[in-house]
């Protein structure tokens, strides 16, 4: 029984560490571009999207901002995955001359020009809002129960949140749902992270 549950553990261990934490060696080695969770939902004519990164393994009390990282919130509106997203909102970080970090959001629905503002502050954009900053990791999962399951050979979840008190760096977008859907009534959303190639 323990042997079989160990196999299960190997299959699920990444999931235990968070919804997308430590899901691949390359991402795990680079916390600034290691996505932990992506959320997307609609409410009252708004479309909200959240992309979290730099999770439990890199928890800090300040956000993790990297000028060479690029984050994408991809929005498909035609249900055709083969042709990619109809709109991708790109997010980058940059510093000013005195070391303050800011965020730049391009292709924000309803905003012609890039949306720029400081991190750790709600930025009002044409047609919505942008927030970037360190947040309590909203992912919850009973990792301790999972470990107990492993050691006892029986399912032993208690529901306790292993991720209590752990932080992530969050990108949160508040968009006009109709504009984001190009006039339609649904969208398909996913998030990506990327790194600027080092030029020799």
């Amino acid at each position, binding site marked *: 029984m323990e042997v079989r549950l160990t196999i299960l553990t190997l299959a699920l261990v990444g999931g235990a560490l968070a919804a997308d934490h430590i899901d691949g060696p390359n991402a795990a080695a680079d916390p600034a571009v290691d996505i932990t969770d*992506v959320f997307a939902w609609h409410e009252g004519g708004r479309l909200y999207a959240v992309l979290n990164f730099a999770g439990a393994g890199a928890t800090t009390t300040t956000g993790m901002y990297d000028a060479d990282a690029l984050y994408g919130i991809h929005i498909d509106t035609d249900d055709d995955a083969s042709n990619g997203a109809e709109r991708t909102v790109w997010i980058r970080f940059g510093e000013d001359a005195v070391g303050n970090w800011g965020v730049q959001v391009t292709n924000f629905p309803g905003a012609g020009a890039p949306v720029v503002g400081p991190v750790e502050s709600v930025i009002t954009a044409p047609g919505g809002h942008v927030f970037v900053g360190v947040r309590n990791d909203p992912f919850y999962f*009973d990792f301790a129960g999972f470990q107990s399951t492993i050691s006892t050979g029986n399912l032993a979840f208690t529901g306790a949140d292993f991720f209590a008190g752990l932080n992530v760096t969050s990108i949160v977008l508040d968009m006009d749902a109709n504009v984001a859907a190009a006039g339609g009534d649904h969208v398909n959303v996913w998030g990506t992270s990327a790194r600027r190639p080092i030029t020799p």
Partner: protein
Amino acid sequence: MRTLLMTTLAAFLVAGCEGPEGPEGPQGPQGAQGEQGPAGADGADGADGEDGADGADGADGSDGADGANGADGANGADGANGADGANGADGANGADGANGADGADGDPGAGNFVFMTDDPATYLQVDRSAMPAVNTAVIASKDAYNEDTPATDATLAYAGEINASLDFLHTALDADDLATFTPCSVDLVDPLAGECIQQAAPLVVPDWHSVDYTSPAGFPNGRVPGDPAIDITLAVLLLDVDGLGSTNGGHTAGDLIGLSQTADDGIMLSTFPFLAAP
């Protein structure tokens, strides 16, 4: 003098760090005190400061000047020259000089964020995510999957390894831990014929969050922070759920809710940005 000021203005437009402070025009009344027409030229200096507000747009452009912008920000101090115009009590133009004071308000370079300008297409994708735990639980080629796209998902390129992972899970759990449930079935010979993958594929392939505005929000209609997305996904991967796939085992997608997830510690905010502070 004029040429110098215009040069300064040009640099200031690039720097554009004081834009938000434009509203500070109250010093205008001081200008009204004056009557010396000729000094109106100083007032024009103030106009330079006002243009600094336009410079904020330049910051948006951000494609330019990079590190040098910090120094340009210092030019905001030049805008302060306009303030001199106001102090000079130089006729009505002095009011314009008050605008120049806006420039003085800016810390050199502060708020003038500099961003990389490389084409997104040239970046190297490291990670991607939508449906929680898909990569971690049922994907074997994890890095390749992270660097891939929903377009590839849609070709069912990962269906084989998803099915193999489902077989792993069921071999480990069905006979005992899931003995009180009706598990879905896995077909290793014809992967797409298995009940489990027939249930799972519409949920996780392609790997994106489908958000239907015409139905209430809540996983799997999008994913709201706090949704028991893992337990719902586990049910779809492990149990024979009614209405999914080709057979109905009497389960719902909510039958495992509470197994591994109860409640998050973070108090969700009712308003944007929703996620709680640390």
